[in-house]
């Protein structure tokens, strides 16, 4: 009961509800009794906490009120985009359609070309193209076959699979046990896949992982003739790359390996896609799936597409996406892919870097 009296006195004192005379007495009491003084201090602190809670709750009430008003107005246009991944998913869906349209445009002869261009003009969709070379013509195939036959005759190299490829792209090793990274759009529609190293050794491969959202795919060489490769020279950074960082790539826009260099021009990809970078580099169909490497020898991205109507605007998937892919594979398939941890490209000249690198970048072909 006495405690209640004290609490009441403290509250009245704080709220300025105490008559002058009582106030003087109360202050006197505080001065002379340290116990009471401490109680007053403690209770004052507690009351200020309660008061703060009251203020914040009423502010929150108004914040919510304003928010719901703005929400009804459509101010938070973010409402349909409930999750970010959804946006990227939709965007990628969109890109997939473009990829298909572009693939058709590449393969189908002139007779349908007008239809395609009409479609793109009306819908204005074909702004980016995946960088798979699907224009491998009969002539080139024939050449390859002859070349293969010649090779077969002169060396006892692994048996070259006999099939006519209708596209070509790039892949690179992430694990010496025959695991390669490339784009999902490279392997999605393929029935058969062959990878070929710089020496011309060809191996059958299959896609063990393909993600349309990130456009990443992981291939596994299934050929028994494949021997474990060691000394992968590059590493994979865990952090984002920097703007203006010089970068280079190796790939197969032709039958022969081609080097290209450029720089990182934006930290997001097409239409703000945060899973990729925009890079400025000269690439051609066939470069898809190639590694984007910085001067430290770190793979910062994987080339995936370019903007059709602009020069040198290329998009590369951030290599940080690989970590998530590997986790998924580990969980789903119980396959433990180990990324290389030793970087032997660092601090050497570009020519030496390429010499070391070229053994690990493969050509992907398929039909």
């Amino acid at each position, binding site marked *: 009961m006495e405690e*209640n009296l004290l609490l009441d006195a403290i509250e009245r004192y704080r709220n300025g509800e105490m008559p002058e005379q009582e106030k003087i007495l109360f202050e006197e009491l505080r001065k002379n009794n340290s116990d009471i003084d401490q109680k007053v201090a403690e209770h004052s602190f*507690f009351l200020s906490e*309660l008061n703060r809670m009251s203020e914040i709750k009423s502010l929150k009430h108004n914040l919510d009120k304003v928010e719901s*008003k*703005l929400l009804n107005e459509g*101010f*938070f246009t973010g409402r349909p985009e*409930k999750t970010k991944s959804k946006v990227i998913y939709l965007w990628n869906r969109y890109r997939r359609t473009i990829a298909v349209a572009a693939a058709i445009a590449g393969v189908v002869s002139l007779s349908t070309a007008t239809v395609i261009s009409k479609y793109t003009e009306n819908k204005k969709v074909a702004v980016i193209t995946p960088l798979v070379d699907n224009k491998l013509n009969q002539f080139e195939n024939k050449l390859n076959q002859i070349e293969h036959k010649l090779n077969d005759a002169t060396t006892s190299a692994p048996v070259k699979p006999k099939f006519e490829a209708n596209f070509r792209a790039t892949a690179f090793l992430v694990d010496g046990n025959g695991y390669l990274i490339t784009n999902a759009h490279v392997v999605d529609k393929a029935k058969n896949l062959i990878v070929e190293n710089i020496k011309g050794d060809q191996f059958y491969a299959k896609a063990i992982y393909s993600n349309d959202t990130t456009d990443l795919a992981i291939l596994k060489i299934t050929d028994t003739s494949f021997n474990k490769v060691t000394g992968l020279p590059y590493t994979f950074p865990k952090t*984002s790359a920097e703007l203006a960082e010089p970068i280079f790539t190796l790939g197969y826009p032709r039958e022969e390996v081609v080097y290209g260099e450029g720089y990182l021009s934006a930290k997001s990809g097409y239409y703000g896609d945060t899973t990729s970078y925009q890079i400025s580099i000269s690439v051609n169909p066939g470069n898809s799936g190639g590694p984007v490497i910085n001067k430290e020898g770190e793979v910062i991205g994987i080339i995936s597409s370019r903007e059709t109507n602009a020069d040198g605007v290329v998009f590369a998937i951030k290599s940080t996406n690989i970590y998530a892919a590997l986790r998924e594979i580990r969980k789903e398939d119980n396959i433990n892919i180990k990324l290389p941890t030793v970087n032997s490209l660092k601090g050497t000249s570009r020519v030496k870097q390429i010499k070391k690198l070229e053994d690990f970048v493969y050509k992907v072909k398929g039909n």
Partner: protein
Amino acid sequence: MTGLKTYDQDNDLLEALAANDANAIETIYRDNYSAIKAFIIKNNGYTDDARDIFQEAMIIIFEKAKSGSFVLSCRLQTYLYSVCRRLWLKRLQNQHRFNPSFELNHEIVPVEDELELHEQKEAEFRLLENAMQRIGEPCKSLLEAFYIEKKSMPEIADLFRYTNADNAKTQKYKCLVRLKKIFFEQYKDKD
């Protein structure tokens, strides 16, 4: 709408915010939300995160404005953006998510000290909320009616069917003592 307001207008807005004025809140939302949302979304966040962070920043600025000693040393827009940015980076850090990879072309001022103080206050706020949850009914409602909703004692006596305001008051103090006990026990554990 693009934030071409003067410092005077900023100070007026702050004053109105301190008074919990809904119009001021709305103006601040309209002028600032989109930049903050863009920053958060570009840094691995969702729209909901943006709204969450914005509210938290509003609470911080509200409390600063209320304290009376706060003087804006930059545009309100810059200050609010800086607070939101810091809050979001901190949250990303706590969740061990990716490093921030995007910065908008937006002026920022250092706000680390303010946020440290805010975090401490936030922790106390949560302790109090927790204690409120634990005292049970009718104590919780009774105390909330008086201390949070600021209802008068006769009003409360009527609402909770006490025979008179004095009875309600006695009951209120009993509840308050219990609440304090739980709060300060937690408070000591915290340190």
